[in-house]
């Protein structure tokens, strides 16, 4: 005779009819447990990356999946293939998913007018345009063709200080553009 589903799924019944008489294991498993699987298996893609914190350069695997209908990083963990790190991460590296997904991240341009007491919003394209204007105006106002009779062809009117998480390619373009504009106060955390 066919037993009804509720009965055969009732752990008490499974306790009485199976090997797990004390109800501490097989008989009492829940649907959540039966369906457990690493969420990384559901990732849409996995890319190889490098930890953005210290200079050891630990390998990372970045898993991207759908969260609330949008693509998001669902896990970052060590890359076991890396001869540098062998898949291991420190607390900062282990927190790097949160670095990417935390709620304190800014994703909008903010603008503070001179003498203003608060931020206002600004369109990214407008901001870029305004910044380009500032650079050119400052450069024009502060251009030095020579110092003590020696040609220098530069501006000391604006400066740049980069962080140590800038990529090589980013530093290359920063140095290239600023130098071509005649700026020389191009600095980096590397001196700090």
């Amino acid at each position, binding site marked *: 005779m066919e037993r009804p589903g509720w009965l055969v799924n009732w*752990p*008490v019944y499974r306790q009485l009819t199976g090997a797990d008489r*004390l*109800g*501490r294991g097989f008989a*009492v498993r829940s649907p959540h447990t039966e369906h457990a699987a690493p969420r990384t298996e559901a990732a849409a893609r996995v890319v190889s990356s490098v930890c953005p914190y210290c200079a050891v350069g630990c390998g990372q695997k970045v898993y991207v999946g759908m969260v609330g209908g949008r693509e998001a990083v669902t896990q970052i963990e060590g890359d076991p293939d890396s001869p540098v790190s062998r898949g291991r991460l420190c607390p900062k590296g282990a927190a790097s998913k949160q670095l990417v997904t935390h709620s304190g991240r800014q994703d909008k341009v903010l603008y503070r007018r001179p003498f203003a007491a608060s931020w206002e919003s600004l369109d990214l394209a407008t901001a870029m345009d305004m910044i380009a204007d500032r650079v050119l105006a400052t450069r024009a106002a502060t251009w030095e063709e020579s110092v003590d009779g020696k040609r220098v062809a530069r501006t000391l009117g604006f400066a740049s200080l980069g962080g140590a998480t800038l990529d090589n390619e980013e530093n290359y373009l920063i140095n290239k553009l600023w130098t071509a504009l005649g700026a020389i106060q191009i600095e980096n955390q590397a001196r700090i």
Partner: protein
Amino acid sequence: MSAEQLQVPAAQFESYYGRPILKVTRWREPHLPAYLFLGELSGAAAVMGVAAGATGRPGLVRTGRVVAAAAAAAGAAFLTAELGRPERFLHMLRVAKLTSPMSIGSWILVSHSALTSAAAASSVTGLLGPLGTAAAAGSAVTGPLLAAYPGVLLANTAVPAWHSSYRELPLLFTGGALTAAAAAGLAVAALTGDQADVSPSQRLALAGAALECGAEFMLERRSDLVAEPYHTGEGGKLLKYARAATMSGALLGLAARRSRAAALASAALLAGGGLAAKFAVHRAGVESARDPKYVVQSQAANP
């Protein structure tokens, strides 16, 4: 302990910065003591109702049945309120685990509640008498179990003061069950003015007090370290009050027939003593879990 009092450099070989090794129980006051008290009351009241029926005391039958049903319901309410997810109370019936006194207790409580409710309903409405009697008879089986199992419930934990008391606690609770039922009997008698059936309650009080105070005495007499919370601190103090109240309540109960006031006072002392004992047990358990010495020193002494 405030951070100012801690000293990093002071190497503490006996504990980790004086912090508890165990988690202090999440079971709260008044929920836990109230549940323990109501459960034992219900259990003994149910038996009392049956015994009254068997011995021809219809007044006490109704008292026993109604008190048993009401106390079971109230106890279940306190138990449910203790759950982090009360809506999942019925998950208790998912399994039947001999290793879990709470699982066994849940089955007992649910059965007992159903039986006592049916018996009480029958008694109050006068309908379905035989069925009511049958249900009551059943509750005479579940009743003692309901009163006794919490002793295992508490003892089957890592809480030093509870686990080490697995002999005393069931006796304390069933003794308390008797005095609680006696208190109910005395109180109802005093309030209704029907003094006819007071003597079983008086005897019940004496028997219960003997058992309850005996168990308390056993707890207090123990010299092992983990029993310390039963004689010191809040737990120890409450336990002393509880014993005094129970003993005086039982003795005062002897005057119940002469004085309604004495009967009511006796009922109050018996109930208060029983309840205080439950608070004492809870606090002793909390204290023994909070101070790591009870864990470290008792275990370090193990062979």
